[in-house]
C-alpha cells in the first residue's frame, strides 16, 4: 500500500513538475515577448492590441490571429502586405519585416496569443518559427 501510494505520488509530482515547467517556459517566453512588443509593435497595434481604426488591425480578440496562426507568424517574420480581413474589417496595409530573430518571433507571438483576452492554446516555439518559410 505504501509503495503504491509512493508510486502514485511521485508520478503525480513528475507530471506536475513537467506541466509546471512547460507553463514556466511559456510564462518566460510571454514576458520576453512583452518587451519585444513594446519595442517593435506598440506604436501601430497600440498598448492593448486594439490597433488603429481602419489602418492597423487589432490583435486583441482577432479572429484572423486565432484562425491563421501560421500566417500570423509568417507576417511577423517576413512582413505582411496586401488585403486581410480582421473581425469583418478589410485592411490593405503594409507591415515591414522587423528584423526579429526566430526566437523573438516566437516570444512575441506567445505574448500576443495570451494577452488582452486572447488565450490561444499551444506554445509557439523557435523551431516552429524556423520551419515557416516565405
Amino acid at each position, binding site marked *: 500500500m505504501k509503495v503504491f501510494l509512493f508510486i502514485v505520488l511521485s508520478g503525480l509530482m513528475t507530471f506536475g513538475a513537467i506541466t509546471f515547467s512547460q507553463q514556466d517556459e511559456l510564462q518566460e517566453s510571454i514576458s520576453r515577448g512583452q518587451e519585444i512588443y513594446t519595442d517593435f509593435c506598440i*506604436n*501601430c497595434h497600440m*498598448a492593448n492590441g486594439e490597433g488603429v481604426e481602419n489602418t492597423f488591425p487589432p490583435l486583441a480578440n482577432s479572429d484572423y490571429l486565432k484562425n491563421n496562426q501560421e500566417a500570423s507568424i509568417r507576417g511577423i517574420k517576413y512582413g505582411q*502586405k496586401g488585403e486581410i480581413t480582421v473581425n469583418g474589417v478589410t485592411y490593405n496595409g*503594409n507591415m515591414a519585416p*522587423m*528584423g526579429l530573430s526566430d526566437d523573438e518571433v516566437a516570444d512575441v507571438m506567445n505574448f500576443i496569443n495570451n494577452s488582452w483576452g486572447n488565450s490561444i492554446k499551444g506554445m509557439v516555439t523557435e523551431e516552429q518559427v524556423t520551419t515557416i518559410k516565405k
Partner: protein
Amino acid sequence: MYLYTNKSMKMKQFTSLLAVLLFSFYSCAQQEPSEISAETPQKINYVTEVIVPELNIPWGMEFLPDGSILITEKTGTLIHFKDGAKTTIEGLPEVYVRGQGGLMDIKLHPDYENNGWIYFSYGSPEGEDEGGNTAIIRAKLNGNILADVEHLYKGVPNTKKGQHWGSRIEFDKEGYLYFSIGDRGNRDVNPQDITRDGGKIYRLHADGTIPNDNPFVDNADAKKAIFSFGHRNPQGMAMHPETGKIWVNEHGPKGGDEINVVEKGNNYGWPVISYGINYSGTKFTEITEKEGMEQPLFYWVPSIAPSGMAFVTSSNYPDWKDSVLVGSLKFEYLERLVIKDNKVSKREKLFEGLGRFRNIKQAPDGYLYAGVEGVGIVKIIPDSF
C-alpha cells in the same frame, strides 16, 4: 446633523478633500489637444500621380540633375529610377535592418553637380557590440555602383532596440550638414546626456569634420558633433527657405509629436517635458515646460506620427503658400500646416487614405513628390479639371 464640532477642522478636511479630488482629476486628465485641429478641405486643387510604382517603404529620395530619382528602400535597397525603369545600385555598406531602422535617408550635397557627393543615413552594425546604431556616410554614384564611400559618423553604442533611429539629413545655406539620431529606445538615459549619442541633432562640415563653433566643443566629455539635444525621434527635417534655420518634426509617444526649430546648444526637453503620455496611458512626466528647455513651435495631440517635411515655395502651388507639409504615418494623409508669425494658424488633411506618407520633398523641377508606403513615389500636380 454634522458630527463636527470644530468648524475650522471641518473646513480643513473639506479643503484637503478638495485638494485630493482636484489632484486626482488632474492626474486622470485628458491630454490637452493641439491648439489647432486638422480639417478636411472642401476641395483640393491638386491630385497625385504615381511616378514610381511598387515600393515598400521609400524612406528617402533625391532628384538627380538628369531627372532621374534615387530612392532608399528601408529594407536596404538603393534604387535608381531612370526612364521608367528601376536599377539597384550596389556598393552600400552592410545595413542593419531592425524595427524602425534600415536604409533611411538620402541627400545630395548642395553642390552635387560639381562634386558628386551623396549622403546616406542607415542602421549600421559596425563596432563590437551586438545590434546597431545610426550611421552617416557619403559616396559617389559611378554607373550602377556606389563608389568612394566615406564614413562620416556612427552613433554608439550598438543596441538591439528597434526604436528611434532619427536619420533625416539636411544642409543649411552655409553648407553645414545636419542629421538626427533618435533616442534609440533609451529614453531616460540618452536624450539629456550630451556625452552620449541618441536624442540629438548633429552638425558637421560636409566632409564629416566637426565645426569648431559647435556648441559643446569645449566640453571634454561631450559628443562634439551635437548641435541640439533633448529630442525623441526626428524623422522630418527641412531648412526654412527664408531664415535658413533647420526645422524638424519628431514623433512623440502617445500624443506629443512636435515641430521644433533647431538652435545651437538648445535642449528640447525630451523626456523631462512632454505633451505626450506612455502608450499604456500612464504618465512619465507631469510637466510640459521648464526653464532652460525649449517649447515646440507646435505639438500634436493626438499623434499623427510625422515623417518627412517640406516647405512649399514653388509657384506651382499658389494655394499652399506659406505652408509646411508633413507626412502622417498614423492617419495616412499629408498634413498641410499654415505658418503665420512663427505659429501654426491652420491645419489641413490632404489626400486622406492614400497611405502612410513617409516622405515629402519639393524637387528642383518645382513639383512636390511624396514617398508613400506600399504605393510608391507620387507627384502632386494641379488638377486640370
